[in-house]
């Protein structure tokens, strides 16, 4: 999507709709400084932080996610785009808290014991935050005790677990079984993800859903939250 002729583009000269479109392109190309500049421009123009997040940043990352799913973009490009979005979110995050942006739900997320891979988890965390979830990331190599402590402390709606290795993914069942043994399994929505997983595995270990990628994780989480709210409304 990059274009040599865009080198001289002055972002501040663009009207809002063209600037947002340009942000989509810059996210796609992983241009963090340009994204940060554009976020500041929109803030100066009076845009609400939540609108910048959802309409420009999440909108752009949705295109990135779609092209990743379709095999047009690959992991390196997605990471660069994520880095650019992270730059924009760092500016918006304190402002979102101040302006009382809507909160869809809360998630605790971490990579399971024995596994130090966190690229997928970090993408999910970022996209969940972009979608209005509060995310508590407990990092990598988490034993069941650490998950349980985070659930107790943070009281989230959702527990997310990630694993990249065939050898570590069975540990998700250890966590879910422990939750069941303690009688707290049904208090949480449990979402799992990672390259070697699939839907069948997710069902077999007793998760609520397997999420193929970050975009699916966001949609699945939103869908479960909506159901939860509906249940509460009809209870």
């Amino acid at each position, binding site marked *: 999507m990059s274009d040599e002729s865009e080198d001289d583009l002055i972002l501040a000269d663009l009207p809002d709709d063209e600037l947002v479109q340009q942000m989509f392109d810059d996210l796609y190309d992983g241009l963090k400084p340009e994204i940060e500049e554009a976020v500041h421009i929109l803030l100066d123009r009076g845009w609400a932080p939540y609108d910048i997040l959802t309409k420009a940043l999440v909108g752009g990352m949705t295109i990135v996610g779609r092209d990743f799913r379709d095999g047009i973009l690959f992991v390196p490009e997605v990471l660069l785009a994520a880095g650019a979005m992270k730059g924009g979110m760092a500016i918006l995050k304190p402002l979102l808290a101040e302006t009382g942006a809507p909160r869809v739900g809360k998630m605790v997320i971490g990579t399971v014991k024995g596994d130090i891979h966190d690229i997928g988890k970090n993408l999910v965390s970022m996209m969940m935050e972009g979608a209005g979830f509060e995310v508590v990331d407990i990092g990598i190599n988490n034993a069941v005790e650490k998950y349980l402590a985070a659930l107790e402390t943070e009281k989230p709606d959702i527990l997310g677990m990630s694993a990249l290795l065939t050898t570590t993914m069975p540990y998700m069942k250890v966590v879910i079984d422990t939750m069941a043994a303690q009688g707290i399994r049904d208090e949480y929505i449990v979402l799992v993800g990672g*390259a*070697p997983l*699939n839907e069948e595995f997710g069902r077999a270990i007793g998760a609520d859903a397997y999420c193929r990628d970050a975009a699916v994780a966001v949609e699945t989480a939103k869908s479960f939250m909506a159901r939860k709210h509906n249940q509460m409304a009809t209870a």
Partner: protein
Amino acid sequence: MAGAAGRLTDSAPPARVLVVACGALAREITALQRAYGWDHLTLVCLPAILHNRPERIPSAVADTIAARRAGHDRVFVAYADCGTGGRLAALCDDLGATMIDAPHCYAFYEGAAAFRDHADEIDAFYLTDFLARQFDAFVWEPLGLDRHPRLRDMYFGHYTKLVYLAQTDDPALTARAADAADRLGLGFERRFTGFGELGDWIARA
């Protein structure tokens, strides 16, 4: 390896075995085949780069078995799980084929017992001879590190060392593996494994 030698001295002709193998094992299996005279094996290798998209391995194996199975008594799939999350094992069950019972090639090169001893070595990035030889094509470039070196720590920030599991004593390959460790910003350790349990698996095929 005694099993293989025993089979070859039996009076009955050995069963014809189709071996569908990961291309990353081609050199090693060919060397074993030559060393032990395993003429009853038909070796068909799939592109090793499938490892970068493990979800595509089962269908590639299934297609190859369907195309090449005729004329063979048995099928052996010379893959470990290799990130397929059990899908390759399920496929082998369905097709009546056998495969290597291990999570990946690092495990059967080291041997199950030694690998278990290293179960807590979660911060090690492994290379084999194949990967030492093909580091740029299979690691550096697919991860985009040739174009975007700043991504290195996003991928490898939690690793502390590169462990080179050497199938052969080759100073040039050791130097390449050490160079890979340096480029990734990791410590370096070399462990000689030889072909580990690979020969036993093929002998039992």
